[in-house]
């Protein structure tokens, strides 16, 4: 498994953002759904080795990220797009992607080619020399994706990657996700269930720090059958049904 999580928790003071999540996944596109504050971003940040877990076991790409050497090896193979992408306005698209390629410890000789490929893959070839300050929000998001995929990651973590993208770009991005998922484990945290339906082979749903569903998008859709769950699309209704069931179970326990 590329990602192995066992009883993983993360606390921020008295708040428990992630509460005992257990998960294992290999190559493919994995959708992570959940309402605001469900703990998706905290889970993704632990997977990205930004923050360590408070407790539990975490192995990425067969290595322990708690130890410096393996963590560095994981990071060489990691792509990460945070929810709020920070950027340097004075950098050009190519410079920004090249900068991160170098920080990811790619062999320097391979960097120019990898940068050009990544920029082309996100459809920014004609903006390669543009300063980031001149780009729209959607273009910046694509720059963020380019820096995440420049090192051909084996584990790609994308937090709200389609936010700000127009429908055409979103369709292209889903195709890119499917392509990347053939060789790598791609975990996509999103609010947009149509992204999950179109691109993900597996989906998990988080609520209040816990994993309340894991399966295929079809299985999630099936959860809505026989219920009066709200939603405009079948997947949305499945999402609502699972959430409602999880919350009623939690209420009954308490």
């Amino acid at each position: 498994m590329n990602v192995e999580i066992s009883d993983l928790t993360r606390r921020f003071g008295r708040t428990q953002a992630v509460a005992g999540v257990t998960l294992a996944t290999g190559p493919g596109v994995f959708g992570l759904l959940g309402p605001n504050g469900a703990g998706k971003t905290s889970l993704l940040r632990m997977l990205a080795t930004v923050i360590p877990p408070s407790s539990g076991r975490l192995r990425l790409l067969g290595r322990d990220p708690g130890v410096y050497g393996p963590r560095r090896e994981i990071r060489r193979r990691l792509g990460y797009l945070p929810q709020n992408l920070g950027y340097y306005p004075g950098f050009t698209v190519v410079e920004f992607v090249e900068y991160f390629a170098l920080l990811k410890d790619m062999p320097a000789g391979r960097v120019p080619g990898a940068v050009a490929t990544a920029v082309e893959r996100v459809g920014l070839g004609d903006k390669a020399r543009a300063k980031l300050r001149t780009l729209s929000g959607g273009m910046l998001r694509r720059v963020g994706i380019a820096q995440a995929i420049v090192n051909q990651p084996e584990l790609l973590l994308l937090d709200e990657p389609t936010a700000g993208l127009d429908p055409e770009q979103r369709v292209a991005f889903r195709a890119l996700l499917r392509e990347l998922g053939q060789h790598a484990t791609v975990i996509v945290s999103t609010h947009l269930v149509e992204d999950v339906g179109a691109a993900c082979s597996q989906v998990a749903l988080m609520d209040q720090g816990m994993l309340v569903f894991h399966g295929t998008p079809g299985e999630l859709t099936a959860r809505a059958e026989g219920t009066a769950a709200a939603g405009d699309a079948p997947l949305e209704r499945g999402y609502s049904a699972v959430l409602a069931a999880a919350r009623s179970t939690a209420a009954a326990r308490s």
Partner: protein
Amino acid sequence: MTAATDAPVRHGPPRAASTGPLTAARLLRIELRRNAMLWMLPLLAALFWFSTYRPSMALPPWWNLRGTLLQQQALLGFAPLMAGVAAWMGSREGRRGTADLVGVTALPRWAGQLATWAATTCWAMVAYLGGVAVVYGITARQATWGGPLGWPVAVGAAMVAASCALGFAAGTLVPSRFSAPLVAVTVFLALAAGAIAIEHNSTYAQIWPLNVQGALPPDTFGTFSPYLPDLAITQVLFLAGLAAAVLGALGLRAAGGRWLRCAAAVAAAAGLAAAGTGVGLAGTARPEAHGIVIPTLHDTANDKPIAYTPVCSQAAVPVCLHPAYRSLLPAVTAALDPLLSEVAGLPGAPVRVWQVASTHLQQRPHNGIELSGPVIGGSPPVVSLPLSGMALPGEGHTTAAEFIRQLRSQVPPMLLNTLIGGDQLDTNGQQGSRSARQPSPSVLAQQVIKAALAQVAGVPPDSGVPPLPPGSPADAAAKRFAALPAAARHAWLVDHLTRLRAGQITLGELP
């Protein structure tokens, strides 16, 4: 809830680490192209022009004067701004919200930080050394003697690196848009505090980076004897140590492996040791006539005077200056020649005026010094004239006329007192109120001649020649003597100087 997919396990082979010169060079290239210091170069150039270039060019083209300005004025202007810009670069990740993104990259964070600092420091060095090249280049065309002083520039370069390191570290630790101005103000205040500290502490405060050879005036060192590098060595040691300690501390803070932490710890410890050693050595500094001496570092070969061939005026009494002072020869000659031509050939009169290195007496407990003045001595008599420490033409608002006035207020009174005597108000031994102290008739005659010659020589009032009461017989006698033709005055002095000096001539015997 537990979740698992059925996908196969992937254990990719280790990827080759690429960290090496090429990666570092590419990182540095990006950082150099997108560095805030690059955009500050025009401002730094303007600052240099105002703070250093203009004052430098107003001074005589002496390497020691201009080298001093390159360490003092340039750094006072540059260091706060450079530290502020470095803080801006150091706070970049925090301000721009890229900390998460950068934090999960494989390259040790310290390496990335060092690349950013190096690029920032590189542009700062370009600004500083570019300014040095301009000033020294012009000085090379103007100077009549000597060569560029390297040590003030070495201290300046070390200060630039240390300012950038301090600012960068501050920006990294407190990433805010306010970090840059706060750091700039703090560095400026620290430099100002150093000026105050050195006034009240003559030992450890000598390490202050703007301190060039203590309280000695800039034209007292590096001309008659070699520039003493003792203090500059301790300053470079201190500043380089400070930079290494700060950067090492950054490396300790950045997450990394054992070797990285060891390297950072070694850098921090070595830096602290170097900085501490610098301060300790500065505590043993003592001022000498030709610079600050630190016994542990001192090379006695630097105490030997530098041989030179003086430049002399073609006058009855030649004025000879160090070749570095060639441009001042006309002014010095103009200042002294009126009196020298009056007394030339008289018994005890100087046969030459010879510029000498100044000597000084250190004032305790403060760090001030008192410079020696002109003296006459030897056989045949020669006036030893130290020009160091005087306000030179172009320095501040000093004009050539004011420089001449300074010289005339120092040399002629000394010369007249030596030649004629009469510098004691009361030769009768009376000690009482000022009104009761009246010169004896013989002393009065001496004072009349001195007053007359001082008038002829253009000596400013209140310059050590006792004034005569206006309208008094003595005043009238002085005016009469001054009105005589120069040849008549000289002939009278030839005949009567020995008796006048011995106090054997009274007011009534004067022409």
